Each structure stands twice: as C-alpha cells, then as structure tokens.
C-alpha cells in the first residue's frame, strides 16, 4: 500500500500540537530534542500505524492518526514506543465518530466509552450554549457537563431547560424570605452566586427525575447551604491548582465540588458518568495557562519573531509594495500568536478579525499581553520603518520584556492554520488600504496600530473594570485596606491600546481646554481628567491625554495623572508600585510596566 504523503502528515502533526496547552506541550517536548524531532517521530509512528493497518487512512482522520501517536500517561509524555499501542489508540479514536479534537486531547486510555461520549457531548454543548445564551461561561460549562452526564436524547434542549429552570428557581429563592448563604470571602462573596448554583442543582435533579424533596425552594435552601460549606472549606485549604496568587483560596477545588453537587453524582441517573469529571476535563489547563503561568505572555524577543513563520527575507523599506503589507501582516500575526494555546489563538483571531464585541471584558488580559509584545517588537528608535524581524537591538526598549523570557523556539503555530491565515489576510488588506491612502507616510508601528480593531471605546470604564479583575487575579480582594488603590494603579498602567503608552514620570496632562471633555477626579486640587475627546484636535504623542480614543497613538497616563485620578501624590503612587514589585508582583506585573524611563 502507499503511505500518506509525508508533508500531509507533518501538517497534521503541527495542527495537533498547536492545540495543546503550553504545559502539556512542554511535557511532550521534554522527551525529544526540539519540535522538529517530535514531529519526525510522530510522522514515523503514523507511517508505522498505516503499515500495520494495511488500509489507507482517509484525509479527515489525519489529525486523529497523529494524535494517536502520542501518549500522555501520568507525568511523562511522548511518542508511543510500541506501535501496537498507537494502533489501538487510533482505532479507538476512529471509532468515536467525529470526535472533536479538543476532546480527543483530553481523553485517557482508561476512560469508558460512556465518559468519552459524554465529554464530546459536553464540549459541543458548551460551544453551542456560548453562541446563543448569555449565562456566565462557568455556569454554561457546568450545566453542559451535567446535561451530558444525563445522556439525554436532545442535549441542547435538555441543557437549555436546565438553565432556564435553574435561573427561575434562583430568582424565586432570592425573592423569598429564605436565608441567603453567608459570604465566604473571597471565594464567594456574593450569596446570589451560590443560590444560582443551587438552583441549577435542583433543576438537574428535576430533569433527571430524582428530586426527592417535594418543595423546590426547600431543596434549593438545602443545596445552597451545602455549597456554602464547600466554599468555606475552600477558604481554609491550600489550593492544589492555584489560580493567580498562590496562597489564595482553593478556587478550582471549590468549583469541582460544586460541579459534583450540581450534577447529582450520588444518584443513579447518570449511569456512573460524573459531571465533576467532565467539568474538570473541560476546564483543565485553562486557568493555569491564563493566569497562573504567564511566562508565555508578553514574551516576545523580536530577534526570534520569525521562528513560527517561513523564512523572512530582509525587506527594503519601500512602503508602497504589496509585498511589504503581506510581510508586515505575517509578522504581526506571528508575534500575536507566539506561545498561545489554540483557544487563546482563537480569542486573538476573533479580535483581530473584528468579531470581538468592543467594550467587553472577555480575554482582556490575554489580548493586552500579546498587544504589548507586538508594540514592543515594533518599537524602535527613530521614525524609520522597522520590521519586527529587523529589530535585533530592541532589547533596549523598555517596553520590551524580561530578557529571561525568550520566545519558545518550539512554537508549533502552523502558518497554514485557518485562524492564522484569516488574521493575516485581514491585516494585509487593512495595511494595503492605509498604504494606498497615505503612501510613504506611515511606519510599521502606525500601520499595525491602525490595522488592529478597538478593544474599548473609553478608557475610564475599562480602568474601573480591570481594577476589579486585578483584585481577583492578584488576591487583593476581601477585607483589609492596605494598598487599596493598587488595583486601580495597575489597571491604569495596563489599559493601553495599540500605539498607546504610559510614562513613569511627573508629567501633567495637556491643557484639557483643547478638545477634551473632562470629569472631576478624586483629587479636587488636580485639573479635571480628560474623559472624552471631541472635535478633530489631536494631541501630540508626547502630550499626556488619558482620553485618547482608539487608533490614536500616544501617552495615555503618567504617575502624576494616575495620582490625580485617585487623589494620591506621585510619591504614593510609586510607593505602592514599588511595594508590589518588591513583593515579586503578580500576574499583572508585566502589564503594569511603564513604557519609557
């Protein structure tokens, strides 16, 4: 028989690896010397599997074939040493008709076929629910898991019914005079959150026909107090999977218990398939890669930028060429997608392609981090055009990142992947349009700034929103007033769009009489803060204007304007930042670094 084309298998290997979480990928790479060797071994094993099968493998099974060459048992991972295991694994994956690759990545050899089917159902359900309903994703994933565990004939209808019923029960409960759970700071400070989980738990039992307490609100009350007990336990237990700050509460542990409770695990209705297990698999790695291990974010050494893309020829600074737009677009995409998981790359592509809703908090930290890396890569002394690939010396740019964080040379991002191609295409078209409008005037930084879509329409509300997220991520929530302004300071430092920067200086904002609507800040002695830009007047990039709209490059805050915002002296702003930095900082440390000395 003829083996599949080697290039075809290599492409499939890259596609599969690109979907691994960085931590899982690290474990795979530990078994080999670099990405190329891993791909070689995978392809060789895949060819062995094809030989053993003695039958051609259809194109649509390529990804499963390459995935089947990998083993991830316990702590070790790598390519199957024994061909028979890879063959078994492939047969098993192939027998699960049309299993989603993200699910195939998460299953283990010991999983029952019931569990695998439920996982696949739950994954598809969570994707479907996210596109048509407005519940917070954590509730949707939990109910997707619980509904899948019940193995209903129509999973979407079942999940929707549970979500609707659970919401109604929670609403009725809160409107009744029944007791609300006490807050268990800071895992769950708002009792209504627990009541909503309890409402879903009752709704799942009603759906499964195992609700044993006749009065629904009596049942919700009982379930809520059980959840409260788990929340309090999470407070006093060291987290096994810390989220954000390491000495925080056991957030992941709590949600696993909550999934157990919501999913009626103790009843026979689920046939032994556990909601908790499904929920944990679907959420695996997400928190770790987003908040805990941020070494891969903001980590782009401009010298290595071409690592994930084809060989880049030095480009003559002739701005009008179409080749330039193509090259710049490819470079931007390579930087933005460096060191990302598949999910993260989709979130970035969603934004770059203009499909992300403006003024939403989703994925903000991720997008800001990668945008910061891009701006650092584009940054160079002087106004001359600099391609990221040229800027070998931009390590001296302060906006660039910790030199101890080189880009991972084993980055498997496949330049042919659909999300990469789409991002590149859209950016290229926007850059070409700008070049056609203003030939020769714009540098690569301006072009990139102009080609990226907005993340927000006003900075003020985003700063307030980010501050509350930072409190969660940094463990600054809950009682205690020490450093209570720090989240706002970090948020004001972090809220920078393309081309925008902040300075660690005493500089005051420009005279707000010029084209800005102002608002009073906490500091009455300070001039009112720029809040919204009106008219056509554009401040010089060096003028500090906190209200710069999207697409307008320049300085958005200094230590002095942040101080005015919060009624703090410049010294107090710096003292809080210094204290934070000397403590080692947290997940938001890098995003709060100023742009220039």
């Amino acid at each position, binding site marked *: 028989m003829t083996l599949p084309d080697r290039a075809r298998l290599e492409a499939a290997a890259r596609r599969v690896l690109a979907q691994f979480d960085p931590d899982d990928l690290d474990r795979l790479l530990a078994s080999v010397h670099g990405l190329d060797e891993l791909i070689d071994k995978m392809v060789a094993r895949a060819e062995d599997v094809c030989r053993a099968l003695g039958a051609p493998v259809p194109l649509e099974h390529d990804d499963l074939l390459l995935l089947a060459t990998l083993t991830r048992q316990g702590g070790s991972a790598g390519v199957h040493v024994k061909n028979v295991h890879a063959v078994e694994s492939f047969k098993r994956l192939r027998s699960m008709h049309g299993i989603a690759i993200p699910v195939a990545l998460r299953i283990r050899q010991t999983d029952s076929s019931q569990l695998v089917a439920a996982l696949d159902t739950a994954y598809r359900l969570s994707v479907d629910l996210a596109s048509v309903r407005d519940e917070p994703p954590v509730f949707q994933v939990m109910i997707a898991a619980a509904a899948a565990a019940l193995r209903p004939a129509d999973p979407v209808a079942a999940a929707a019914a549970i979500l609707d019923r659970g919401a109604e029960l929670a609403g009725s409960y809160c409107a009744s005079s029944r007791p609300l759970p006490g807050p268990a700071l800071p895992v*769950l*400070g708002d009792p209504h959150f627990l009541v909503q989980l309890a409402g879903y738990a009752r709704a799942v039992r009603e759906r499964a026909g195992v609700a044993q307490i006749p009065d629904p609100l009596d049942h919700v009350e009982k379930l809520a107090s059980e959840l409260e007990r788990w929340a309090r336990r999470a407070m006093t237990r060291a987290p096994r999977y810390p989220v954000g700050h390491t000495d925080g509460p056991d957030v992941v542990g709590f949600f696993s218990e909550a999934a157990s409770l919501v999913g009626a695990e103790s009843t026979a209705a689920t046939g032994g398939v556990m909601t908790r297990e499904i929920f944990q698999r679907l959420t695996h790695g997400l928190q770790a890669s987003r908040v805990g291990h941020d070494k891969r974010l903001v980590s782009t050494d401009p010298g290595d930028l071409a690592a994930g893309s084809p060989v880049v020829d030095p480009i003559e600074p002739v701005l009008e060429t179409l080749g330039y737009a193509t090259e710049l677009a490819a470079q931007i995409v390579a930087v933005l997608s460096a060191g990302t998981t598949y*999910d993260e790359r989709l979130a970035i592509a969603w934004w770059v392609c203009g499909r992300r809703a403006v003024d939403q908090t989703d994925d903000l930290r991720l997008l800001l981090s990668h945008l910061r890396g891009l701006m650092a890569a584009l940054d160079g002394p002087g106004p001359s055009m600099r391609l990221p690939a040229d800027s070998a010396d931009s390590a001296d740019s302060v906006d660039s990142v910790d030199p101890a964080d080189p880009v991972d040379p084993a980055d498997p991002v496949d330049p042919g992947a659909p999300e990469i191609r*789409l991002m590149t295409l859209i950016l290229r078209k926007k850059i070409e349009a700008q070049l056609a409008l203003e030939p020769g005037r714009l540098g690569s930084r301006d072009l990139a700034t102009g080609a990226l879509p907005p993340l927000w329409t006003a900075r003020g509300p985003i700063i307030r929103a980010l501050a509350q997220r930072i409190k969660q991520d940094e463990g600054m929530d809950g009682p205690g007033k020490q450093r209570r302004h720090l989240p706002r300071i970090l948020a004001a430092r972090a809220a920078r769009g393309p081309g925008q920067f902040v300075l660690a200086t005493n500089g005051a904002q420009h005279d707000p009489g010029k084209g800005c609507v102002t608002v009073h800040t906490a500091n009455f002695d300070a001039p009112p803060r720029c809040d919204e830009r009106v008219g056509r007047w554009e401040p010089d990039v060096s003028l500090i204007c906190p209200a710069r709209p999207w697409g307008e490059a320049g300085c958005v805050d200094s230590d002095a304007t942040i101080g005015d915002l919060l009624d703090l002296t410049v010294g107090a702003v710096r003292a809080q930042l210094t204290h934070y930095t000397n403590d080692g900082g947290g997940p938001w440390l890098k995003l709060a670094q100023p742009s220039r000395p």
Partner: protein
Amino acid sequence: MTNPSDGGGPSLELRPTAWDGYVRVDYIPEVGRRPERGRLQVTFATVEATIAADVRPGLRAGFVTDDPDGPPTFIQASVSRGRLADDLSELLGASIAAVAEQVVTGPGRSRWTRLNVGAVDSLSSAWAPYRDLVLAGASPPDDDPDDGLDGPTPRPRAGTADQGLWVLLVPDELRRSMADLPVSGGLALLGSGGGEDRDDNDLDELDESELPPVTVSGQWAVPPELAELAGIEPRLVWEIRAGRVHVVARPAPSTTGQAVGTRPTALVSFDDGANRWQTLIPDADGTLRAVIDSLANPERLPAVRLRVTTADTNAPRPGSGDQPGRSRLHHDDETERHDPA
C-alpha cells in the same frame, strides 16, 4: 479543523466580577395577589463580596463592598400594575429595562443578559447616590490612623440620569425636626393627587414675606457638578413652614442674569417611590423654591432627591400615553408646562 468563527464565545473565567456584565433579570409575581403585582430582580453574576440594603420603600439594592464605582449587583423592586416606577426604568437603563419587560410579560420569568463595560459604567453612574448610601451603611467610620495617606473622600456624589444629574439628600436633621414638631403641626399628609398644581400656583404668586413663618430650617451640601448644571449655589436649604417642607435654592452669582427659560429644570421630591416631583420655581428675586410632601411617617421620612435635567425628560414617550400607571407622569408634564417662561 475549526475556523475562528467556530468555538467562539468568551473564554472560561471561574470568578466573574460585576464588570463582566452577566446579569439575570427575574420577575416574581406575588402569590395570592392580583396577578399584576410582583417583584423585579436584577442580579449580577459575581464572586465579589456584596452588601444589600433597602434604599427606599419597595426598593432594595446591593453593591460590591470594595468597589467605590461599581454597578448595583442586586436590585429588587416592587412592580404594580405590570409597571416599574418611572424613575426606576430610567435608572435601570434601556438594555435591562427591555429584558425586564420580557420577564414581566412572561412566560419566561428569568433571563440572563450580557452588558458591555459601557452599559455597566452607565448603570454605575446612575446608581452612585444609592451606592454611597448602601456602602456608607456597610463600613464603620474610617478612623484608621494608618490610612492618612489615602485620605477618604466622603463627598456626596451625583448620579447620572437621562440628560441630567440627581442626588440623594439624607434628611437626618429634617427627620428629627419633623418628629419634634407638635402633633398638630406635623407633616401635612396630602393625598397623592391634586396638590401639586395648587402649590405651584401658590408659589408663583407669593413673595417670601407672604409665606408662613419658618419653624425650623437646615441645609444640605449639593455636589458641585450638579449645582453647576442647575445654576445654583452648591447647597440646598430646607425649611419647615406650617408643617410643610420647603426646599430653597439660591441661584449661583454667575447665572443670576441668565434668562429663566434657559435654566435647566431642577426637580425635587421625597424618595418614597411615588415620584411626586416638584419643580423649583424662582420668585421675584430669583430664589428657587418648591414644597414637597411625603405620605411616610415623619419619623421614617425618606431621603430627598434633587434632580436636574437639561431636557424635557418627562415628555410622554412614544406609545406610553395609553398605558395604565402613567397618570402621575402626565401630572408632572402639567407642572413643567406651567414653568414660568
């Protein structure tokens, strides 16, 4: 392999905050009552610590304890005859009000919706006075000596309203004074209809010298931005005259020469949910005055709301004219049209 339009949706965040904008809106009909009575609830999904309190009869509001600028994470409001109080639908904003209408109409009594950061911010500014009230009740007086660096900033903050601002004035002193009055001189309890026009007409003609004498008086500080908008000095005087509460403002010096017709409308009312707004009307020397009443027990006198609008926000909205429960609103329209021009 999926393309970027698949697998979309926000990534999983185990700990949503109020600013993420996930909101559940419920309508709970009251059992055993006429079907059109019930409660509307608005609940944000958040893991932040919150505190809730009754801010006026028929309205409970909760806020995140350590977010001085956050939205109301919990709102519970009475609904009668299938309608929210007019000022409440304004405070809730268009997107929540639209969902509220859906759940009140049914059949689904609960619905999740997603607000963007701009909508959360609007809601936060609209509810600022209630937030300050609830959070002030939550925290003991700030006497932490180590806190000198940060400096607490306790000043009354104005909330935004449709094309204007509003503020909540806490009537501690007024309440005590009212309670101290002899029974016969107690607050005149007027019926809900008919009184307002008469007051306006009275005031229209009266000089201060012709008013009943002041029994007791006091004043409230008004946020500077609101005073600026209204063209008044940043304080409001209250007077008790013949058992009724007069609210008096003096025009800011810079605006005394201003044509009266161009001044934004300043309205004042007890915050008892009845929405009986009285326009502050200038007398001969420009002093603005209104007389307000409440049906409440003097000892539990509600707070006073001052509202300044730059537009005729009380104009009937399209399609609303024939709905029940609008009569009070129409009444306000009358008062506004009588505004001396």
